[in-house]
């Protein structure tokens, strides 16, 4: 007894029944974070006529560059399934070092020496998390504290300053221009594009996504997981080094705690950009949007003249709204299905 029923699809329909038509809509809808960005840019523009002036936009971009450069590195670490909370104190360390060495060795030596030292710290992080498989949150929290101490020991707790601020070519990174645009912006966007290409189009990038998505399966696929994780931390450290050059050049000096609290700001921008803390997904270019959102919120609220605490409260709300919009767009409904 065989009861046949209707079947709209032919026998040989190999590619599955696809719901056609709203492809464009669904692609757009997935970009919740872009929509959020556009929405609140519009909001600020309505309230402050200076907000969208070329000058101000450039200022925000310039200011965001330091956080942005670090966020690019941290995005890679997070995609690889780990956290890096040590970037803030590493930034302090690297900036203090490059500024201090500037006068002692000259910028042409100070930069490579500082980068080397920073990469060493990144390598320590990478060894602990990658090769020894220690929990990245605690390792980098520990490193946050240890590097802070190292910085203070290095500088003796004193501020460092560049004596000859006018004459040094070191100024180019923070204060100069490249291609007619303020150099921090060029460095930031250039690095973001470069890292995006690395992550999206090279075998290394693919391996990072795989390791972050499922470390065991990645190992079973012949990926050297420890090495991959190690490299993500080295990349993160390199980005911190670059950020330190921009910062040192912009300020022409450094305190021992310049980077304090940056780790969480950086992480916020990475998450705003839609990178999942679970690892295995994320996008460097979207991190740039996350950076810009945070940068423009802070600037916009300042332009509106709100007291700092009002700015904090509004930032709280905006961050949650932006991420909500993003996840809601991805799942196609506003409220979460959690019962």
């Amino acid at each position, binding site marked *: 007894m065989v009861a046949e029923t209707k079947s709209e699809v032919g026998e040989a329909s190999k590619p599955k029944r696809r719901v056609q038509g709203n492809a464009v809509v669904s692609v757009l809808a997935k970009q919740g974070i872009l929509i959020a960005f556009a929405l609140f840019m519009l909001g600020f523009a309505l309230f402050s006529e200076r907000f969208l002036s070329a000058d101000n936009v450039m200022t925000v971009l310039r200011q965001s560059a330091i956080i942005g450069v670090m966020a690019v590195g941290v995005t890679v670490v997070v995609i690889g399934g780990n956290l890096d909370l040590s970037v803030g104190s590493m930034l302090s360390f690297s900036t203090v070092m490059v500024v201090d060495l500037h006068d002692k060795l000259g910028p042409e030596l100070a930069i490579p020496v500082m980068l080397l030292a920073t990469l060493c710290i990144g390598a320590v992080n990478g060894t602990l998390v990658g090769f020894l498989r220690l929990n990245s949150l605690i390792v980098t929290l*520990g490193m946050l504290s*240890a590097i802070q101490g190292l910085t203070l020991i290095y500088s003796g707790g004193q501020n460092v300053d560049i004596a000859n601020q006018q004459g040094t070519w070191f100024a180019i990174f923070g204060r100069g221009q490249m291609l007619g645009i303020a150099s921090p912006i060029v460095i930031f966007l250039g690095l973001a594009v470069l890292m995006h290409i690395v992550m999206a189009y090279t075998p290394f990038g693919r391996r990072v996504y795989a390791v972050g998505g499922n470390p065991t399966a990645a190992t079973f696929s012949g990926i050297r997981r420890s090495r991959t994780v190690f490299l993500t931390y080295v990349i993160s450290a390199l980005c911190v080094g670059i950020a330190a050059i921009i910062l040192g050049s912009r300020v022409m000096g450094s305190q021992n705690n310049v980077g304090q609290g940056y780790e969480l700001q950086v992480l916020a921008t990475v998450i705003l950009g839609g990178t999942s803390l679970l690892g295995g997904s994320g996008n460097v270019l979207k991190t740039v949007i996350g950076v810009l959102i945070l940068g423009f919120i802070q600037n916009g609220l300042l332009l509106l003249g709100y007291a700092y605490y009002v700015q904090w409260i509004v*930032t709280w709300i905006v961050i949650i709204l932006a991420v909500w919009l993003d996840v809601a767009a991805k799942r196609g409904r506003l409220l979460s299905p959690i019962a």
Partner: protein
Amino acid sequence: MQTLKTWLIRNPIWGFVVLIFVFFSFANPYFFDLQNFQNILVQTSTIGLIALGMTLVMINGNIDLSVGATVALAASLAIDIQGWEAFANWGNWAILPGVIAGLMSGVILGAVNGLIVWKTGVDAFIVTLGAMLGVRGLVFAYTEEQSFFAMNFAYSDFGASSVAGLPTLAVLFLLFALGTHLLLSGTVHGRNTYAVGGNREAAVNAGIRVGPHMLINFMLVGFFAALAGITLSTQMGAATPNLGREYELWTITAVVLGGTKLTGGSGTIIGTFGGVLAIGILRNGMNLMQVPAFYVLVILGTILIAVLFLDKQLTRGGKEELRT
């Protein structure tokens, strides 16, 4: 002996606690002293209370980064409100509305966090990261940057008081730790905490209402953070808007040291208690040994990592293990 060994392997942090305890006892003449132990207990009680709630939230697979700000808000409310005109002739009872308001603020903030996590599905990390900033903003908005001072010395006397020879704050912490331990290990809510964190889908399928469940735990951590803020303010007789900065990081560190997994599903109060004590003893011991400030940072950081490393060595499966 055998049970002690398996117990230690399951709670390696306690091995470490014993280790540093012995070390400091020999290294410093002031360390091994009843009064000093009481100091340590009181000093750890703040982070400790928060860690109790944090353990629940983290076993759930969530996290709460806003606890530090909650500490400040609850402390400020408790102290400011007890000084209001309205309660001027309540005598020592004036403390009560302040404390209740402080605790309520924690519970409400926890509820706000929990509700957002539940309803929007945004990751708890980002929800509470936002709240960490926003609640601090609320604190500054409320206090207008001022510190508050408790006019009534009964308030700070409470912080310095003892029951049965033990500091009240330490007793309070121990009692709440015991209560939370019982909650987690012996009640349906506690067991569901493991289920929700261990396998959310399984929990949903089993008919556990995951949303309200997480909400309750967020309210609990809010409550504990507020309570910690209040006990801390009784030690100072004052509240400052910057109170509790970076406490979230130290709390999470203590909880993870105690063996709770960030991914959720496992952890114990016994472990958390060990983690909290480890940090407290380290800080106290290093103060007594006059380790210079810069080196304290390096040592503390290094030890955190070392503990993690030892833990890994202890729980490793041996040579036959799968190398992934």
